[in-house]
């Protein structure tokens, strides 16, 4: 891991009407680092990722990628990005290999034959065979779709990969398989990773450093190994899944 900042956020703010989701968030992710963001539902984890990805425009604050300020525009260096969406977000109308090769075909302008070979290589790297390449995504199980989506996220060897709740909806064994694959793939291509998750086992496995998002800010960041003994009562409550504690869930 380098000491150079890959992604640096400062005083990031985003509101939807009267709901203040991000209220001045600061984050510095180093090159080659795997950072995990934990936090309850509706605390703005996905909004944070979407702000970095340029899918949502922040109201205020700074987003620097490789030292370049990008917060004032929707343009992002997408050639550097890979993204694993929570639901997979695979294109229903395209066969699996074309889903994996999509960034290569349209972003990198690669020829179809070459892109197909690379897509099959990526599928193999996530434990899937060539035999599924011509099937449609809807024919696959949830776990397989997640793996295909992971293969798509790493297909262009991106410098930065985002993982949006990569293990949600999977059984514990498949979740662990996905965690191992994420760790392996990120290591292989030497990427910087930001993951958001509720799954503590996943956070501990894939992250180098973790941060807890609460009321629009990262209230705690440290080495992922310290998650269990953070000394922060909010983090302790969340990590151990206790109903009682400083975090109050409003039931409407």
């Amino acid at each position, binding site marked *: 891991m380098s000491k150079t900042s890959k992604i640096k956020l400062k005083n990031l703010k985003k509101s939807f009407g009267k709901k203040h989701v991000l209220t001045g968030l600061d984050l510095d992710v180093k090159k080659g680092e795997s950072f995990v963001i934990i936090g309850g539902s509706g605390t703005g984890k996905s909004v944070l990722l979407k702000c970095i990805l340029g899918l949502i425009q922040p109201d205020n604050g700074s987003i620097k990628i490789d030292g370049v300020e990008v917060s004032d525009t929707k343009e992002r260096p*997408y050639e550097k990005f*890979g*993204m694993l*969406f929570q639901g997979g*977000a695979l294109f*229903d*109308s395209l066969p699996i290999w074309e889903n994996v090769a999509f960034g290569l075909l*349209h*972003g990198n302008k690669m020829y179809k034959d070459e892109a197909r070979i690379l897509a099959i290589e990526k599928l193999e790297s996530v434990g899937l065979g060539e035999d599924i390449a011509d099937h449609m995504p809807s024919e696959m199980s949830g776990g397989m779709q997640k793996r295909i989506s992971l293969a798509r996220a790493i297909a262009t060897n991106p410098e930065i990969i985002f993982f949006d709740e990569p293990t949600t909806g999977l059984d514990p064994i498949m979740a662990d398989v996905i965690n191992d694959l994420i760790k392996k793939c990120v290591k292989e291509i030497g990427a910087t990773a930001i993951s958001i998750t509720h799954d503590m086992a996943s956070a501990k496995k894939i992250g180098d450093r973790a941060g807890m998002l609460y009321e629009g800010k990262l209230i705690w960041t440290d080495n992922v190994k310290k998650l269990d003994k953070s000394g922060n009562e909010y983090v302790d409550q969340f990590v151990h899944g206790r109903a009682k504690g400083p975090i109050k869930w409003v039931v409407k």
Partner: protein
Amino acid sequence: MTNPFFIFLAALGRPVLGTFEFIGRPSYFAWQGLKGAFSRPIYFKMLRKQMIEIGYFSLPVVGMTALFSGMVLALQSYTGFSRFSAEGAVATVVVLSMTRELGPVLAGLMVAGRVGSSMAAEIGTMRVTEQIDALTTLSVNPVRYLITPRLVAGIIMMPFLVLIADIIGVMGGYFVSIYALDFNSTNYIKSTIQFLEPIDVISGLVKAAVFGFLISLMGCYHGFNSKGGAQGVGRAVINSVVSASILILISNYLVTEMFFTK
């Protein structure tokens, strides 16, 4: 804000701004979509797919609609015109009605139901399942990839569909007139051609291109901006069909006035 003047101003401003937004949003969306047709990258594979979807797969439904409309038109004209011994005008009425009005409008409404709804459902589902966000993260502009091909395909294919609908509709009228109403075949064909002018067909084809654009635009616009899961997609489908149908009827009048008002 208790000042009555400001309250009045706010009450006036809200609907005005709302109207601007109502017109401005789809107009800007259309501009973004059409702009993509004049610069690279152009997704020819998507364009071809949409042209087949709109043109080829709509043929049966448009053909059936045109056939029975032509048939019923001949029958109605005959029974109506016979009251003042003007049965000879049936062929002319059928061909002018089909080319100027019924061909484009009925084809437009049928395609709005078939293609507009499918576009809204497909793009809406892509929106709620984050596939559109995925396109962006894969360095592909979703408007260029999804919207531009559909708008262009709608503009190109609708005139072809309407031309075929015109022919089938006139044929429907011909068959009823010859086999049910005992018209003379040669005379009927002669009357059909005699009063038909190129502007009658051209105006219908221009209408078709306008309708094709509006159908695709409404399908794409409502799908692209849908939110809220399955319910949101359902709403997008309804809005796309209703708004496209209304716009077809409004633009039909405007194009007719443009061509035929002296």
